[in-house]
């Protein structure tokens, strides 16, 4: 008897819907076993991970704060990926946006500038992120350079550029040489939504972005174009759609969203520009995009879920003394199962019996 994977005649839509749920179910089963081996009460641990963070407004706010950059970047990336344009460099676009927006904040520091500062920071950050994303897009269209490599390499350029600025020209003169700018003025800071919490305007912007993407993909010709170019390039050519133009467009949009996420993070929860403003949001967002099935609503849910595992992991560290590494194992297992279950959309398990009699007997 043998277990083989057999290609399905057509993709299974049922599995496409339930596979994330199967994956989460399998993850929970695995984690229960792991917690039991560690000598922790699995039910209490799962409670700390998934339930406790949802029970008070403080943790809910923190989940939203953590999910905001992930969702914004992932929405942009999903447009690229739907059009089969592989933007891997959202992290760099995020950083460039943060730098460009911070430029206004740093230059207007202490000048009593008006309320125009924050909107101007947003616009500049989005523009810078878009321009930065256009570099790999144009290299791809004009010279056939792999956008995967070029966009990825530009991440390190952006990272070092930010590093240079906060260690050199933009360093806080009163910061004892620590690599950071001075705290932004209130006019250059993203307003908070709830007194005493950390929930900020950026979360609302992320929701607007999700809604806009849903409308774009579901109701407009441009959205249809993006999906056709990705799914059926030949049909798209016959339909007169210009694939190169779409690469440029989707890269620019995803760069703009990543840049906007960057300045929102810096002018929001951080409050100043410093190295390490992103614990890899641009890369984690790739996971969020695929976890959310490249669907705007799915991405919103996936972003919130991943944020929940971060916050829950921290609460588990505090409440159960579970080490941080377990949270990382947990996230890794989750992704593993998601990918594994996804293969069931196109394939199915089949038992093969070399002994025909048994097969006949069974059939």
């Amino acid at each position: 008897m043998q277990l083989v994977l057999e290609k399905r005649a057509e993709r299974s839509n049922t599995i496409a819907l339930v596979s994330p749920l199967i994956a989460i179910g399998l993850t929970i089963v695995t984690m229960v076993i792991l917690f039991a081996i560690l000598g922790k009460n699995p039910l209490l641990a799962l409670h700390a991970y998934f339930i406790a963070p949802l029970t008070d407004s403080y943790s809910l706010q923190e989940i939203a704060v953590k999910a905001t950059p992930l969702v914004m970047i992932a929405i942009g990336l999903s447009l690229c990926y739907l059009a089969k344009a592989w933007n891997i460099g959202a992290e760099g676009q995020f950083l460039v946006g943060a730098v460009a927006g911070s430029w206004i904040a740093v230059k207007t520091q202490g000048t009593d500038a008006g309320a125009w500062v924050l909107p101007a920071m947003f616009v500049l950050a989005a523009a810078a992120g878009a321009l930065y994303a256009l570099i790999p897009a144009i290299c791809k269209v004009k010279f056939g350079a792999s956008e995967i490599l070029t966009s990825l390499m530009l991440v390190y350029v952006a990272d070092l550029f930010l590093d240079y600025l906060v260690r050199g020209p933009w360093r806080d003169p009163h910061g004892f040489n620590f690599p950071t700018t001075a705290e932004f003025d209130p006019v250059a800071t993203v307003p908070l939504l709830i007194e005493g919490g950390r929930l900020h305007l950026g979360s609302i912007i992320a929701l607007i972005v999700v809604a806009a993407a849903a409308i774009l993909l579901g109701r407009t010709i441009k959205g249809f174009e993006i999906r056709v170019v990705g799914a059926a390039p030949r049909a798209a050519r016959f339909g007169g759609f210009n694939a190169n133009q779409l690469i440029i467009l989707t890269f620019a949009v995803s760069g703009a969203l990543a840049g906007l996420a960057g300045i929102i993070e810096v002018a929001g929860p951080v409050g100043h520009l410093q190295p390490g403003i992103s614990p890899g949001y641009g890369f984690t967002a790739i996971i969020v995009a695929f976890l959310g099935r490249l669907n705007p609503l799915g991405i919103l849910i996936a972003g919130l879920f991943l944020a929940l595992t971060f916050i829950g992991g921290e609460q588990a560290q505090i409440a159960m003394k579970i080490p941080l590494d377990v949270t990382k194992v947990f996230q890794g297992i989750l992704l593993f199962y998601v990918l594994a279950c996804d293969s069931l959309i196109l394939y199915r398990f089949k038992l093969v019996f070399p002994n025909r009699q048994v097969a006949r007997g069974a059939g």
Partner: protein
Amino acid sequence: MRKSLLALAAGLLLAGSVGAASAADKLKVGFIYLGPVGDLGWTYQHEQGRLALVKELGDKIETTTLENVPEGPDAERSIEQLVRAGNKLIFTTSFGYMDPTLKVAKKYPNVHFEHATGYKRNPNMSTYSSKWYQGRYIQGLIAAKMSKSGVLGYIGSFPIPEVVSGINATMLAAQTINPNIKVKVIWANTWFDPGKEADAAKALIDQGADVIMQHTDSPAPMQIASERGKLAFGQDSEMIKFGPKTQLTSILDTWGPYYIERVKAELAGTWKSEDTWGGLDSHMFAMAPYTNMPDDVKKMAEDAQAAITAGKLHPFKCPIVGQDGKPVECKGGANLDDGQILGMNFYVKGIDDKLPGK
């Protein structure tokens, strides 16, 4: 039975009304760590301090740690999570937690905070640090005696005053032995990155350094020096097992006594916001045994240690000449004053490097 139920109910009421006492009536003490507890350097030593604390007061307190907390927006959330979990005294153990700690401290005036190596305080936020420059001075003496090439290699982390004062103390000490000594500095721009630290050690050795000193936290530079047959100083913790024939000594952060003292104050209700800056005399740090050196060098190091502990020798004794050749103003009479050392932003004469951003 009924009695204990009543007591329990009363306890719950009390806990509800003051909102302070936990069910078990143990003081909750939280720690935020920069690295993993197994970094063998900075965080490891704080963890050792916490273990000493638990050993001493384990029946009266309950400790919680969060490790690998980045010095960014996540730190504020992590600190606040500890507050919300009922911790009443929280140690945040890296410079980069300064602003996040202050933000949370202002929000929760009834919780006490202790921030390591910073300079911002609040009525409920203390700072604590050590005069490591005293240990660096002793290392500078040893290094100058032991170096054959006359070139010392120094791996810096960030050019903040604590690190700059360590480089200067090393140089001032070394110059008393060998006026032509050279100190080469490489900035790793990290506290903990074994790969980068190893590269920096290799580069320094390739530039002729034969004694390696570090202000970063991993044992990687010690291992490289050991491979290349050079000498080195450990950092934060005892690193002799990474270079049995290499380590000369190491500055050992001994946080235990301080943590015990502060928690005792908290338990007694006498905790106050303070600025603690302790040296060899107050046992905030110690020197690892002097190894891999001749007896006369060892004797010199021990004498210097005794003199510093007794307050007879000050590493920043005036006159001090800056890198630009001009004398440094001496605000402390015979020595630089604490403010000048805590805010040190200049190199002394002879250092073969430009201070970043200067």
